[in-house]
């Protein structure tokens, strides 16, 4: 174990931090927005809507993320129709392939998390909304979704950590983020432990920050659970 090498590697790998962060931030925020209508559909009493979302979730959760990334990066490009369409502008970039794969993946998991939150909203609350004359949109926007998010926060925190970890797989599509840089360093220096420990420590720190962020959100949105001094 060469600590000087690990120290130098750390500063090379941290230049890939912005690539990792952009992937995480774009795919998490897109995933969050898309998951809201999906989870409402999943929790709805309409069987067709609910079942179609269920099968989507079932397929995505039943296959490894690596297969999904490869399908989008290597698979879609071989369809001539895709190559000739406007989609090719997006799909020829490993970055956007990664974003699409991560979004498709996180939407499936987040939908299930949010569904749990939506279903935890008690019947009495919905009945009181109706008795106050709220329409469906106001009811979801003001009552059901805020309550659901609060319930879903711990689960969503886990999903955020999983996403930070999942971005490392995008390095297998030639997109150079932290894991990709670490792998390059390993090939150059033949010192894998130094390279991957440096990358691992950055991921660990990122996830530590995510945990603190979720703890803050839970503290902020659960004022009734705070211990009064």
């Amino acid at each position, binding site marked *: 174990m060469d600590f000087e090498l690990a120290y130098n590697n750390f500063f090379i790998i941290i230049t890939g931090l912005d690539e990792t962060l952009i992937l995480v931030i774009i795919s998490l925020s897109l995933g969050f927005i898309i998951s809201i209508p999906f989870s409402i559909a999943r929790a709805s009493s309409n069987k067709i809507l609910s079942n179609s979302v269920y099968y989507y979730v079932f397929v995505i959760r039943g*296959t490894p993320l690596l297969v999904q990334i*490869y399908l989008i990066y290597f698979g879609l490009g071989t369809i001539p129709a895709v190559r000739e369409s406007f989609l090719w502008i997006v799909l020829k970039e490993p970055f956007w392939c990664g974003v699409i794969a991560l979004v498709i993946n996180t939407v499936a998991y987040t939908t299930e998390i949010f569904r749990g939150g939506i279903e935890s909203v008690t019947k009495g609350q919905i009945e009181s909304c109706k008795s106050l004359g709220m329409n469906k949109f106001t009811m979801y926007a003001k009552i059901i979704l805020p309550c659901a998010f609060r319930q879903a926060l711990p689960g969503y925190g886990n999903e955020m950590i999983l996403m930070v970890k999942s*971005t490392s797989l995008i*390095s297998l599509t030639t997109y150079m983020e932290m894991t990709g840089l670490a792998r390059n360093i390993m090939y150059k220096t033949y010192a894998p*432990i130094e390279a991957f420990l440096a990358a691992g420590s950055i991921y660990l720190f990122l996830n530590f920050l995510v945990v603190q962020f979720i703890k803050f959100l839970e503290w902020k949105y659960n004022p009734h659970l705070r211990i009064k001094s």
Partner: protein
Amino acid sequence: MLRFDLLILGDTGWGDELLISTIMPILVSLSAMGLGVFIAIFTAWAKISDNILLKLFANFYTTVIRGIPELLVIYLIFFGGSSSIMYVGKIFGYNGYIELHAFTMGTISIGLISAAYSTEVFRGAYSAINKGQAEAANSLGLSRLQTFLKVLAPQILKHALPGLGNVWQITLKDTALVSVTGLVEIMRQTRIASNVTHSPLTFLLSAALLYLILTTFSSKVFNKLENYSNKNKVVV
């Protein structure tokens, strides 16, 4: 584009190669899960023990493994293990390249990952059991080993079963990453087949289907096991 003729069994198609390669993820995840549960018994024990050092070590282990990407863990153990063994080899005067057995190293790395998740499952299952049970066993004169084996362990297993089912799914899907070590499993075979035939979509879709069959089948098995473990449950 999709070419189903490539998927037929026999010498002209890749169907038989793909099906044979499906055995590998099953073998890797079975042995990794076994290793993981074995390690997790001790780390969960360390977590609930009163020894601060043991507790610290177990917490460090689960936090680190769950906090860094699985791919990094596999790289670290596969390439790192290889380079540390070569380092030891150099001390004894062997300067050649030593490559480790891909299956063994893949199993160890996936096992270490799944052990971290199983630890949390076991710890949760333990805390779900009423403290009075251990006290009652103690007052009946059972030794500590007997208390654990006859009273606590069966109940821990029952509470842990749904969680272990989740860990199994994670483990099964993590085996797709072992392909980076060169082990010929579904993903590796898919890459080989698509490079030869230039038809990646066909093989990637079949790989997805194979994984889907594996995960669906195993979730059915775990449902059966859960029903079996709850057969004595009295519904009030």
